[in-house]
């Protein structure tokens, strides 16, 4: 039974304060995108005099729509690839006793520690030599590569706890290892797949450095690169820039709000 003790009030207060601190900058961003240029400088904290969509028109024209689409395509493909590849590898690791495979798993952990920017130039030259620059389809591969280690570790933990009786039963029925994995284990791995997918979706969606260097053609850029370019192009058109940012930010937020219940439930599997 909820009681309105001091502790409870303090708790409420703290959480509310934090929420407000989180919301305000985002709200201000949306608000300011409706202002005119002069208003931004003369009256930073005030409300817009006329709520005008002009800034959105300018931002859209600079290509934000295309960038949004590119990010969507790249992220979906990357996440699908990561989940499938990691799931398969983690299953082998989790079900194996061999020392060699243990070693390979450790290698995977090592791979997780490698930051993309540390190996940026050799990576870029490799992609460039393969003719994969500016190709959305092709950047999915390096993106997926950098998401696989973390996701493999995630799935590894999950598969270690996965009840093996079901797999036993399937094998006794004559299923091959592969079929066991695809027909029995994977369908029942919903929570792990969901967590992995959401994590990797967020990281891939926001990836900046590789996209900056490898996707330079106008039609190929992803959202984060487009956002930084907005700042350079819109020298002092802050409402335009903030409108572009709003376009960049709102879709993900909406998806998140709609999916968040599912997301949190699936996260419960992570820490086990």
């Amino acid at each position, binding site marked *: 039974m909820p009681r309105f003790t001091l*502790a409870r009030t303090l*708790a409420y207060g703290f959480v509310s304060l934090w929420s407000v601190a989180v919301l305000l900058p985002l709200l201000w961003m949306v608000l300011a995108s409706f202002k005119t240029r002069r208003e931004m400088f003369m009256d930073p904290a005030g409300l817009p005099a006329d709520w005008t969509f002009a800034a959105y028109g300018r931002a859209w024209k600079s290509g934000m729509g295309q960038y949004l689409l590119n990010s969507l395509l790249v992220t979906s493909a990357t996440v699908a690839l990561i989940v499938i590849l990691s799931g398969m590898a983690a299953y082998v690791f989790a079900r194996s006793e061999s020392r060699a495979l243990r070693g390979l798993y450790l290698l995977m952990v090592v791979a997780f520690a490698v930051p993309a920017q540390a190996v940026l130039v050799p990576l870029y030259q490799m992609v460039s030599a393969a003719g994969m620059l500016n190709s959305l389809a092709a950047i999915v591969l390096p993106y997926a590569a950098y998401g696989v280690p973390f996701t493999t570790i995630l799935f590894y933990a999950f598969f270690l706890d996965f009840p093996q009786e079901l797999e036993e039963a399937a094998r006794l029925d004559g299923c091959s290892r592969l079929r066991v994995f695809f027909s029995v284990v994977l369908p029942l791995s919903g929570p792990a797949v969901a967590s992995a997918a959401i994590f990797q979706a967020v990281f891939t969606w926001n990836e900046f450095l590789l996209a900056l260097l490898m996707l330079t053609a106008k039609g190929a850029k992803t*959202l984060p690169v487009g956002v930084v370019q907005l700042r350079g192009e819109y020298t002092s058109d802050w409402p335009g820039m903030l409108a572009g940012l709003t376009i960049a930010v709102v879709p993900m937020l909406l998806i998140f709000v709609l999916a968040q219940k599912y997301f949190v439930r699936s996260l419960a599997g992570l820490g086990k």
Partner: protein
Amino acid sequence: MTRNPDRPKAAPMGKAASALILLLPAMGLCTVFIFIPALLAIIGSFHSFGITSQVWVPAGLSNYSRAMADPVFWVALRNNIFIVVGSIVLQVGFGTILAAILDSGLPRGTTVFRTIIFAPMVVSAVAVAVIWQVILDPNVGVLNTLIQSAGLTPPKLGWLGDPMISMWVILLIAAWQYTGFMMVLILAGLQGIPKEIHEAATLDGAKGVTAFFLITLPQIRNVLVVAILITTIGGFKAFDLIYATTLGGPANATQVLGTYVYLQAFNLGNMGYANAMSVILLLIALVLGWLQVSVSRRA
């Protein structure tokens, strides 16, 4: 992450062809895009060359000794450690507090709070950087306007222009963005604790804060380890936020390893030196990764 010893063990997967088929794509991808470039970077660290150089000049250990003698390298390393420690305190610390509050069952609004606080996570770091740079602008930014109308004085050199406070500001912006992530992670862990444990604790007379520290926290130990590990590795990899706000300035006050490597490699053309620092960064990340594996294995 532990094996239940009571469960019957299935026949392990050995060198079966099926094992290879399942394993190869992932290992192949990682080898091509992670291991090979890493190897090239290590080799490069023992040479001297620019991006556009045709020739790699062997340089022995000189790049490494240069890093040891370079004051900016140490400033960057110090800043990375600052971010890691600060982020653990702020993001994991406050994340835990927020998660505990939400888990203890506020009468209403849990979902709303959770959604709001997590929201900045889905905004890309560069977007966050640009928004905050506009808000923190010393001349026409909305924050200073509000501070001044309250009669207070904002920092003279600007939030991001004062070498004394700029690193703190970056830390706070990062916390603004990522604390929600930690909160949700830990909350999931808390919600996974079986009710029996809470009931047993109450029966034993433990309540409130004591119960939390002595009983609840140990139960979510694995989650906390994961949270701390993600924060740590993330702290060492920090790049996007700083690149898009201060670029390591003013005068290297907010320089971190990621941005310094970028500066040396691409602005100053010292690829060999940049590679050496990257290798050092890599080693640090490796040690931390190894720690996670050993700590979680003990659990």
